[in-house]
């Protein structure tokens, strides 16, 4: 247990926050919902043990709100999952994101936890990551001196690692509205039905034309070191005819792909057969629904 006290700052707008970050050191951390930060400090996690200053970003209006900007849905970094679940735009246009958000933690957690907190923390089991990846989301990042927008894929570097610098903040996440020809689903497996760390997550978006896969985007979480697109699998599937045989082949191919990425671990004996099985089931249910 730490005995030093932690200072908490509450900037009221973005520029105030950016000037705080401009000369920030490693001992400064952003806190949004705090559902990862506070538990991390309490558990003496290496990532948080040296924290001396927390900057609470919940009062910054610029990083709130959900709106349409240039055919993209732009979600403020500090939007909580409860906010997102109440938004019709998300429910209608980004149903996979809505479903992933609804599966997170419990009502109490969703009332605090934010979307940026989820992918900046970048745990292997962060539930929104696979979904945001198949939606080709991009991340807006600002510092006092710069502003950049990069794809989420690039932003995420490894378990609990991202491209974010200490003087930067994620302001928004922008998600292109997929064309109506895409169908897809999000799948989460946990050990129970609420407050459950994902054992497996899958996100699939598929554009099928005349029984042929025109485009498919597949991402996994918890079975890979971080949520990731399985591009080899996507390439393999494109142009193929949709049928039961092929779904089985594709699912088994996912098994091979995951072995390549992660090797065999203590959990593989269970997770490997199950991820293939449930990927197949997911493909079948998407096909069923698009008929």
């Amino acid at each position, binding site marked *: 247990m730490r005995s030093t006290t932690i200072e908490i700052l509450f900037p009221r707008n973005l520029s105030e926050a950016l000037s705080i970050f401009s000369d920030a050191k490693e001992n400064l951390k952003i806190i949004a919902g705090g559902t990862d930060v506070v538990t991390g400090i309490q558990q003496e996690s290496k990532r948080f043990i040296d924290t001396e200053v927390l900057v609470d970003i919940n009062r910054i209006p610029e990083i709130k709100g959900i709106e349409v900007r240039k055919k993209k849905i732009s979600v403020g970094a500090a939007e909580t999952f409860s906010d997102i679940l109440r938004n019709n735009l998300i429910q209608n246009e980004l149903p996979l994101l809505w479903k992933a958000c609804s599966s997170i933690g419990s009502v109490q957690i969703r009332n605090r936890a934010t979307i940026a907190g989820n992918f900046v923390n970048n745990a292997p089991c962060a539930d929104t990551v696979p979904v945001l990846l198949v939606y080709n989301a991009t991340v807006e990042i600002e510092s006092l001196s710069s502003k950049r927008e990069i794809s989420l894929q690039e932003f995420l570097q490894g378990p609990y690692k991202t491209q974010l610098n200490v003087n930067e903040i994620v302001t928004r996440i922008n998600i292109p509205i997929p064309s109506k020809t895409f169908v897809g689903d999000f799948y989460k497996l946990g050990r129970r039905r*609420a407050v459950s*760390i994902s*054992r497996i997550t899958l996100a699939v978006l598929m554009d099928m034309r005349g029984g042929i896969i025109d485009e498919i985007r597949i991402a996994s979480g918890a079975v890979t070191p971080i949520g990731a697109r399985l591009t080899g699998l996507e390439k393999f599937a494109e142009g193929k005819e949709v049928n039961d045989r092929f779904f089985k082949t594709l699912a088994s191919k996912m098994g*091979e792909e995951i072995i390549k990425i992660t090797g065999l671990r203590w959990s593989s004996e269970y997770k490997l057969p199950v991820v293939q099985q*449930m990927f197949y089931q997911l493909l079948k249910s998407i096909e069923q629904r698009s008929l």
Partner: protein
Amino acid sequence: MNKEFSVVGKRVIREDGFDKITGRAKFADDYKFDGMLYAVMLRIPSAHAKINSIDFSEIENNEAISAIITSADVPGIKKTGLIKNDQPIFCDEKVVTPGDVLAMLVGNSENELRNLVKKAKVDYTELPLITDPAKALDQEAILIHPDNGSNLIVNHHVKKGDVEKGFEKSDHILEQTYTTPLIEHAYIEPEAVTAIPLGFNGVKIIGSIQNPFTARRIVAAVINLPLDKVQIIQAHLGGSFGGKDDTMCILSARAAVAALKANCPVKIRYTREESILESYKRHPYIMNYKVGFSNSGKIIAMKINIIADGGAYASMSPFVTWRSVVQATGPYEIENVHTEVRAVYTNNPYTGAMRGFGSPQPIFANESLMDEIAIHLGISPVEIRKVNALKNGSITATGQKLENHDVNLIQVLDKAIYAADFQNKWRANKKEKPLTKEFDFNNPVLQDYQYVEPDKLIQKGIGLAVSYRGCSLGAEGIDTASAYLSIQNDGTVYLLSGLAENGQGMRTTFAIIAAEALGILPEQIFYLETDTSRIPDSGPTVASRSTLMGGGAVRNAAEILSGRLKKIVKEEFKLSEEDVVSFRENLVFSRKKGLTAKFSEVCKLAYSLGINLATIGYYKSPSVHWDEKSGHGDAYFTYVYGCQVAEVSVNIGTGEVYVNKITAVHDPGTVINKLGAEGQVYGGVTQGAGYALFEGITTEKGLIRELNFDQYLIPTSKDIDVIKPVFVEGKDSYGAWGAKSLGEPTLELTAAAISNAVRNAVGKRFFNLPLNLEEIVLGKKLCPQEVKRGSLQ
């Protein structure tokens, strides 16, 4: 239900409900005192080690430390225990399990102490570990408590008839081995206690203590003071489930030692991690059952061999395993029985009392086996149970004849199968062969045939289990309870019993009983604070005994006082000798003259006449007897019966089991508070479902993996759909109008019912709890090699 009752059997909101939901109720950690210090524990990350030395030189002069407490500071007995004195207050020689505490730092900043405690240098030598209870009695096994001469804590047996001859006469024989895991109580409130030194008056202790009188006995022995110099007050308790007994006695003793040395109030409060690390748990059992039966399903012989993992200390193991040995055959009349139960020491977390107390384990084994017999013979689970069920006048495995109460086993079974439409569903869901797929880890990429057709993914199943349970302590020991009742001159009443409110709603139950007997309302009764200096010792609040025993005492007290009031009424209102006075709805009636007076008027009158309207009621259980040598006796003076039907959906791809419905039919005798009784069912079933599907403490090199609720998973409200409580109120002469036990019966059979439902759904039997994802898909458990949490990067 008895039609004459006016409050008994109604739905009464618990008296502490509003205080608890509004945050007003004071729990142990809410108490603060001037000059209060904190105590923080010194432990080492080892499950078995010899302590060579402890060096405090780096911190002993630190200002933040008011006192360092070690075994040398303990004025009285240095080792304690509920049955055997084998557990050191501070381990200065040896650590035998990872929760063990070597010493304690006392000071006013808990945070600073937690940092300083890391600077105590402990030199220790690791000793070989015993974590497998099946190996604890091996010749070459290291002795965990050498004084004990072996790693055997206790060995109980029950013998009836001749099992070998019975097997010879049997048409069929089945033999199976079942296991159950180590279970954490998971009370919402971690342990907390404060000891306040009172100079010549000893010490006062306020804490989250399940059994104040047990704590008093142990504290007094540890600080070497007479019982009257140790006053224990129970704070509102945030759950216990049997778990705030030994641990809280020891924490109270440590706090008392520190308070006397520092001469200041000292508080100990645990984090969740410390709570799971140090507190005792429910015993894992390894159970071998061999059963011989006839073509018609009549069980002729049953031979049972059980090893219970007692962990590092004896705690309640002798009594827990005694209940197991008595009840292990299940509620069936069997001619030839031989049951052996041994509890052994290991370096695992120690195990003691937990809701169920030695019954959930054998019920899981026994009720799984009953279904296997039925399947083997091609008959239904209902039929196999009816053929063998205990009935009025049956003789149990221990040779006890069941009489003097309604033996309602078949009644609860019938009611449950009717309510759940069991027979039809069971037949419809029945699978001839296993539906789960086999996987080969050497060929992890799935073959086409290993994929499940989408409409076969979710399989429904239904299963049932029955149980009987001996009420209260049985032959464990003397069984009495007391209750204090004092009527004020306006008709309001003070009530206190020597049993404790552990969240079960006991105070409300007792208020209803007193209100019924006095013809007043439960709201008129104020339940006093539980304090060992105010009321006679009534034994521990365990064994689902408070309603039965304490209820008997409350009724006795109320009847003594109502007798005095009736006498005055007769005299004052000049009623004839044969007239009958009764109290109802705050009014006093004469059978002949009708309404005579208000209750409050009679109370005032009694007061003015100088009549004593305070008393202590008392209840003593009828005698039971037990012959440990022959394993025979009338183990308990009465029994309760239950049947639960579980309906589940199993995902055969992932191994997820969802509980769609539990129909829980119980005969607790007379129901006192309907709302409280239903609450017991909801809670017990949920705990039982956790036992069935999720829960289990595992260790790696003796160290616990699941130290918080991110890893130790208990069910949420989303994991179980419908729980339907149904009560059959059998007649009994004991306690308050035949109100018996419900708390433990509701939990003990749920896992067995769920496991049987899973068998019905997927066509495969599972022998090892919990039936988690890996168990269902792979038929085994998987654990990471290290204890560290994934998120600690």
